[in-house]
């Protein structure tokens, strides 16, 4: 049921121009290599979804692949702004970017609702926040028992979710460990799911009977990309390249240095070598 593909073929077959895409990862296991391949294949008019868009989304936006961004926190963690994201919003370069802004609680609940097959999620949130006035997707319902006013947001159902995980077995069952973020929900909420992994093994060796595992019949394609989460990290495989996150601030600050870096490190790189190259 699960296809085992090269990164090139997986992105070519599953990423359609104009589609809604979630490349999730809460600081951990961010599918950087997959994002780079989307840039190389010059996909366009994408609606990107993610709680914490960071460097890879900054790159996708800066290279003009993105029409709309659904997010709750868009910055370079511990460093500052995402300059390409700002440039697109503030000056429309390289193209205008539509924003749909939520809180983390809202997006986490919306992904969970998508995974649960519900049309919406309810939670206690957005009380007194001006976000309510600028995002028409934030509404309210009354609890039928207490009358309490609760926030409601529509379920998130991406056309495609791409995540990076530690490993998959040869059937396509996938194991995730450490900071698992909202990846399981993002995967189960999507119509299609691509998982890039550090390695493909005979036995997952899940440490606990309750380990986070996606069964093969929930995964469309598995791609083996060692180092595919760099400069983020893979618990048990390699650490976070905090120095690169810090360095990105300078690289992305102006358009020329950004384009030069993309040219050298992404556009002229081969997908197969991504992991290794970025791990240097």
């Amino acid at each position, binding site marked *: 049921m699960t296809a085992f593909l090269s990164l090139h073929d997986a992105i070519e077959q599953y990423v359609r121009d104009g589609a809604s895409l979630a490349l999730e990862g809460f600081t951990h296991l961010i599918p950087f290599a997959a994002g780079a391949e989307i840039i190389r294949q010059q996909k366009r008019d994408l609606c990107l979804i993610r709680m914490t868009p960071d460097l890879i989304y900054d790159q996708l936006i800066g290279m003009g692949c993105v029409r709309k961004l659904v997010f709750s926190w868009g910055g370079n963690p511990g460093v500052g702004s995402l300059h390409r994201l700002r440039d697109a919003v503030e000056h429309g370069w390289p193209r205008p970017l539509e924003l749909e802004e939520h809180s983390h609680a809202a997006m986490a609940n919306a992904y969970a609702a998508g995974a649960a097959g519900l049309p919406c999620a309810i939670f206690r949130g957005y009380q007194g926040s001006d*976000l309510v006035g600028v995002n028409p997707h934030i509404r309210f319902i009354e609890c039928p028992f207490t009358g309490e006013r609760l926030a409601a947001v529509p379920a998130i159902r991406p056309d495609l979710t791409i995540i990076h995980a530690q490993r998959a077995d040869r059937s396509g069952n996938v194991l995730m460990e450490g900071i698992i973020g909202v990846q399981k929900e993002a995967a189960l909420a999507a119509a299609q799911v691509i998982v890039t992994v550090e390695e493909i093994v005979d036995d997952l060796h899940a440490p606990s009977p309750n380990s986070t595992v996606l069964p093969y019949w929930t995964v469309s394609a598995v791609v083996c990309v060692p180092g595919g989460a760099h400069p983020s990290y893979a618990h048990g495989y390699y650490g976070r390249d905090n120095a690169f996150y810090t360095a990105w601030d300078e690289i992305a600050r102006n358009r020329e240095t950004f384009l030069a870096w993309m040219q050298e490190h992404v556009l002229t790189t081969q997908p197969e070598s991504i992991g290794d190259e970025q791990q240097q």
Partner: protein
Amino acid sequence: MDYSTGEMMAVAAARVLKNEDVCFVGIGAPSVACNLARLTHAPNITLIYESGTIGAKPDVLPLSIGDPELSETALTTVSVPEMFRYWLQGGRISVGFLGGAQLDRFGNINSSVIGSYEHPKVRLPGGGGAPEIASLCGQTYVVMRQSRRTFVEQVDFITSFGYGTGGDHRQRLGIRTQGPTLVVTDLCLLQPDPETKELVVTSIHPNVTRETIRQQTGWALRFADSMEQTPPPTETELTVLRELHARTEQVHMGKATPDD
């Protein structure tokens, strides 16, 4: 011992934390304060990072909200939906930390935009977990440097609700938590007036004048009748803080690959 205003801010914020507190920790100043408290007077304080790590005891300060250090030292790591549902919304957090680009006299915070929302002069990262941290933690502490640019009469955009227009505004919105009960800056401590909920200065850091504080505040600032003097950082506090920063510096720069 000599110290910077930033060190005074971190120390002052750390001092208010208790051993029994369960803190929802933000990156930056809050993370410094929480870990300083844990390494000094509150060894059993529970630190929760929104990435899902419960009971993290990082040896160095995380650069991001989800550094490996956090899950590797945590009691357990849960999914992000569980974190926001069972732990934050579930009412398990006693203290939440907030910061932002702008803070107003009633403790409302803006971390979304400078200028208009549709055509912002500066597009900020956004609220992240803050809107619900502000309404669901038992109380919140704000830690940020004080300046006319950041301490404003009115914020351009309320990302996270403090006391709104003051008085019982929180209660009128059905919010059951205390809100921003303390603001720690590099110059002083501010607390809400029990009635009006306007932030007033209650303690001044050493070698800081009321005039300086006024100059760095965008509204007609009030000072409490019983004003306190913030005790300077102790040698222990400074030593632990500086060692923490030194360890952090070393680790984060360890894997420098600027060209990659």
